[in-house]
């Protein structure tokens, strides 16, 4: 843990975003994670993405469960709302919160333990409901807080710090999410902010549930030879499958048009994701092609914004909920009273 809080001095060139805040205004408390933890880099990427999107801190809700990853919402956007839920329940709590107030930007931060073991069911159902939120899995293949046991994302043959090999097959959150109808699926690496920041921005702009699986090496328990989630292994095996830019809605579209033939996807809020490079025959809007590609390239770590579908309705749209947050409804409408309840129950008799 650092000896001091971050000095208040600010670089003079740090400009203010559209709502008058500078990058440092999006910081949180000092991290208490191990020095060199990938999670801290993801925190830094989130700070940058939220600042660049000029989201008002009080319109952000940070949610997490239990684990090293789930500590990180403390480390960004001090002024945001936050909920640190029970282990694996972040997706459920986020679904509930989103149902009650659809106006907030929901940032869920989870880990491979929280999401792929105890919370797997909750995550899958949040995907099915297409809850509008950014769901980050800080994926390091081990349970860091309990001293480095294999998690559900550990690869077969990957070795623990003391040399034991994992024999159980891993759950790949990307493949899983694609197979159950996720509408935004990306994978990135904590050590590659150039790629990660635009993905996070696109994920926040997405119409529904945006899953971002981020390989985030555990510097204490899983950054050795024999690990398949170390800094070195990830660098050697990652492949930038897609290269995408995020173009915010207010930008002049002519000025930002890409090279001929580049794929663009217009997001629900009017922003544009522009794919500058995708493999031959790859279409980030075609689920089957993406699944095929991932199957065929299992030896490498495919990264980038892998799949996006802006046409699917999100939870609110599917359920035709009120247009505003529940707090904005008059009390009589929110709670119609005994008479209305009795009338409703009469229908079921």
């Amino acid at each position: 843990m650092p000896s001091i809080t971050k000095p208040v001095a600010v670089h003079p060139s740090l400009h203010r975003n559209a709502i008058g805040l500078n990058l440092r205004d999006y910081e949180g408390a000092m991290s208490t994670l191990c020095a060199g933890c990938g999670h801290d880099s993801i925190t830094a990427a989130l700070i940058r993405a939220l600042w660049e999107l000029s989201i008002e801190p009080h319109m952000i809700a940070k949610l997490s469960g239990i684990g090293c990853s789930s500590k990180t919402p403390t480390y960004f956007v001090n002024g945001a709302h936050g909920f640190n839920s029970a282990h694996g329940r972040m997706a459920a709590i986020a679904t509930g919160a989103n149902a009650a107030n659809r106006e907030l930007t929901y940032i869920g931060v989870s880990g491979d333990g929280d999401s792929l073991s105890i919370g797997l069911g909750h995550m899958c159902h949040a995907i099915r409901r297409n809850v509008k939120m950014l769901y980050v899995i800080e994926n390091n293949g081990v349970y860091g807080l309990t001293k480095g046991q294999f998690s559900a994302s550990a690869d077969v043959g990957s070795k623990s710090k003391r040399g034991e090999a994992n024999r159980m097959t891993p759950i790949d959150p990307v493949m899983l999410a694609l197979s159950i109808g996720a509408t935004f699926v990306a994978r990135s690496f904590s050590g590659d902010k150039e790629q990660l920041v635009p993905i996070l921005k696109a994920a926040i702009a997405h119409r529904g549930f945006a899953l971002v699986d981020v390989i985030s090496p555990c510097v204490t328990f899983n950054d050795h030879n024999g690990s398949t989630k170390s800094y070195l292994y990830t660098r050697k095996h990652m492949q930038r499958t897609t290269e995408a830019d995020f173009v915010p809605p207010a930008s002049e579209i002519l000025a930002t048009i890409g090279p001929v033939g580049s794929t663009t996807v217009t997001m629900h809020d009017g922003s544009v994701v522009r794919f500058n490079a995708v493999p031959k025959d790859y279409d980030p809007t075609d689920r089957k092609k993406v699944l095929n590609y991932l199957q065929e390239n299992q030896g490498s770590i495919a990264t980038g914004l892998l799949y996006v579908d802006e046409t699917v309705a999100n939870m609110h749209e599917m359920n035709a909920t009120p247009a505003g947050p529940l707090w904005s409804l008059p009390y009589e409408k929110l709670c119609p009273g005994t008479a209305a309840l009795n009338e409703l129950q009469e229908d079921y008799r």
Partner: protein
Amino acid sequence: MKRTNTDDPSYFHKVVDCQWACPAHTNVPEYIRLIAQGRFTDAYMLNRESNVFPGILGRTCDRPCEPACRRGRLDGKPVAICRLKRVAADLKGEIGHLLPQAPAKKNGKRVACIGAGPSSLSVANDLMPLGYEVVMFEKYDKPGGLMRSNIPSFRLPEHVLGDETAAILDMGVDIRYNSPVSSMKDLLGQGFDAIFVGSGAPRGKNLDLPGRNDTDRIHLGIDWLESVAFNHIESIGEKVLIIGVGNTAMDCCRTSRRLGGKDIKVMARRPRAYFKASSWELEDAEEEGIEIVINHAPKRFVLENGVLKGMEFERLEWDADAKKSRVIDTVIIPADDVILAIGQENSFPWIERDIGIDFDKGDMPAVDETTMQCSRPGVFFGGDAAWGPKNIIWAVAHGHAAAISVHNHCQGIPVTERLPDRMNLISQKMGLSEWSYHNDYNPVARQKMKHVDLKRRFEELSLEVELGFDVEQTAREAQRCLNCDVETVFTAAKCIECDACVDICPLLCLTITRDGEEAEVRDRLSAPAVNPEQALYASVPLPQTGRLMLKDEDLCVHCGLCAERCPTAAWDMLKFELEISYAGKAAHEPALAQV
């Protein structure tokens, strides 16, 4: 881009902006830490090693360190380095036993120093402990040179000047007062092994305008200050005009205020942005009710029946960058006395021109910038005598350099053979997130010097105006120092490129990016390098990706968070110590070599 060579002491030295800017390279951050710990004597002695006169300089230094201070680039106000130096001098304990001593057995070499000002005294300070016999010729009956004659005692009390000059003279310097040197040729014939000329720039520039020689109420600034210092002048008229707006003008106007001047105007030709005086000296003068009048060019002295009545000025209008002016009209400003403070010149009527000492077109001696030697071997110049008016701290630096040359010369070693400066780098890590220095950034504002009450200060000429920092001010000001000498030192081979340092750096100094042409790499920095004067560190290629670690030194607050968040100790905080070689004392040698 080019990899940075941190083996050269000058890389880390340049990061310590104050020390780099100081002609004597005083180890400022270290003495500020000593002050913060209440170790005033240690702070004083550390200062003395390089600048010889901490008490004098703590009041009068031109402070090249302060405009250079990194803190100034962060919150607009540099650390009050000079004032802290004075704190160490004021609160020091007994130092007699710590001062350099001259050995009983001399080395048989005799050195003459001309003038007993800061440069000559510095030469003696370095040579006496080596066994030299130093003979110092001084034209007045007291030591100090321009420090005594030109700096008013309300800025520099007599006892401070006396103590610090005595510390050197008491080593056994053969000081000969009231002994101006009138012939260099004679002196050369007296069998000295070396001669050092530290006679200053003693001639005030004149202003040859109509009426100049028709009255005795027009004074040359430095001569007038000197007469005041030696009690030859004790009063002045009520209406005083000071011509010129340098630091001497400030001393003249404030002295006039104490000798009876009531309506004192400092007359400047150009707008305020082009004044030569230090901003703090201008402020101090204005605080005392001195009026500073801009855009007035002197035209003639106005006399009636042989009595000075005032001066006529042309009122000027300048273009945007004050290069060209236009005369609007002329005005007559009444005055009882006029003091000319428009600069000083060197003057060597006593150096014959046929003795092998070459003079250039401006009638200045040709002096080598490193060795301080003139064209005649064994004759050295320093202080204002070398290249015209500079300031005390430059004179001290010249003195150190000249002492090395004198020592070489007397040992038969070429004067050009200089011992290199060296550096020490020592890790400040004490444990996990624990450092031997105070790494937290303190946002406290620069402390304001308290002054003697305005009424009280004019009652006594030699009453020191600045009161010095009190304990609380000292503690606060010391915490403003960023410890720039505790350097961020990077070992590329250990880096795993986790980005932790880049993410934590509060001033966005760090970048990991691919190699390229420097101009193009600069475009990829985490924050633009706004100050081209400051170094951009580039590591060798990193092990995992071959990218480079870059650090823009400009705004680093030396908080050490990069090192705290580094999992592999690729970053560490190492205290940089510049080891300067002095005469007879090579860097890395623990004590003075006794001859």
